[in-house]
């Protein structure tokens, strides 16, 4: 099997201005640092980024928010990142808020071949505005359309040369759903190994296009 392990310069070859990027991580844990750094260093602009939260200014997706390379951030929480809040207020970055469970499940649906999901979360709130409400057996649900990305950037605890990934602890978070729903998938692995126990794999290598060495 041909190895998918490549140099980090692949990031600028795959991610282009204006792309939709699915980024894993929860308050920094599980966000691929080397890929975020490469996007910033190569000034890849006008990105639409889907991620659980804006993290803190100095870790996770925070530095990418601060760099000004994100045009639209689709996210459930920006409370720990005052830079993201300032950019939202002054209009320099569009922020679209979705409930965390809805965001994750809509992205999962994107990679599952589904058109969308029906969720009771947010019925009667601002997130229901402009969305179709469907009543099933007497209960209202919001129709949330599925989300797909041009590219998913994820982080693994370990990856093999085929791209199979083992994840660890609370850094598992959104890595699996992001990998499922990106047209191209780049994994930053903390450790690249020759073989992994197939029983422990969380992201099967068939989903992965490139593996690079994470730089923590």
């Amino acid at each position, binding site marked *: 099997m041909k190895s998918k392990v490549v140099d980090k310069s692949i990031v600028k070859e795959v991610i282009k201005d204006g792309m939709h990027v699915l980024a894993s991580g*929860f*308050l*920094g*844990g599980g966000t691929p640092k080397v890929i975020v750094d490469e996007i910033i260093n190569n000034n890849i602009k006008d990105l639409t980024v889907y991620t*659980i*939260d804006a*993290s*803190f200014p100095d870790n996770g997706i925070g530095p990418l928010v601060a760099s000004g390379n994100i045009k639209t951030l689709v*996210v*459930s*929480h*920006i*409370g*720990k990142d005052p830079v993201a*809040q300032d950019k*939202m*207020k002054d209009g320099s970055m569009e*922020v679209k*808020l979705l*409930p*965390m*469970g*809805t965001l*994750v*499940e809509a992205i*999962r649906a994107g990679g599952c071949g589904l058109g969308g999901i029906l*969720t*009771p*979360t*947010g*019925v*009667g*709130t*601002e*997130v229901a505005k402009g969305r179709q409400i469907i009543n099933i057996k007497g209960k209202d649900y919001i129709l949330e359309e599925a989300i797909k990305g041009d590219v998913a950037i994820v982080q693994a*605890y370990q990856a093999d040369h085929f791209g199979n990934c083992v*994840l*660890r*602890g*609370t*850094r*598992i*978070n*959104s*890595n*699996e*759903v992001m990998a499922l729903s990106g047209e191209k998938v780049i994994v930053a692995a903390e450790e690249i190994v020759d073989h992994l126990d197939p029983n422990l794999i*969380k992201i099967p290598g068939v989903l992965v296009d490139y593996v690079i060495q994470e730089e923590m």
Partner: protein
Amino acid sequence: MDAKEKIARRVALEMKDGELVNLGIGLPTMVANYIPDGIEVVLQSENGMTGLIGLEGKEADPYITDAGGTSADITDYGAFFDSALSFALIRGGHVGATVLGSLEVDQEGNMANYMIPGKLIPGMGGAMDLVTGAKKVIVAMTHTAKGAIKILKKCKLPLTGMKCVDMIVTELAVFEVKDNYLLLTEVASESSVEEVLSLTEAEVKVADNVKTF
């Protein structure tokens, strides 16, 4: 005892043995410190863990954080899983109780805690899913905010959830949310029914046998 400890201690009495519980950031997290002897709950952290516990002096493991991004630990019977499963647990009715702070709550059981338009825009995070999916939603908050009334006839801020709150615990009172009114069931030993009513805008009925706490 300060107001937050008083609230946390009272909420802790609502915990049921064996239940999966999700505690919000801040005051709700303090509830874990006061769970009565003999009651064991499993705490969920929505970033992907059941069996959440504090570090309690242990060395931090960089692979374990709570939903606030703080280093945490996991019990011997805990489990890690991905975000999709974490929210399947939440929306799917597998969480017995959630405890959340709030900016406003009203007599219909609506609550608003995720934004003040033009001022504070942290986002809802997992709160909208929690108030929708948890079997029991407990709002734990100070009764007023710098004198401003928070328990209203109708929330003014954008809602986190519609008709979702089951119980409100403040440092002054405990309410059950009924059909378009609040039932005052307990009053703090430091307070009185009169004081509680004067600091509450919502329609309140006073229970026949109001207890003190």
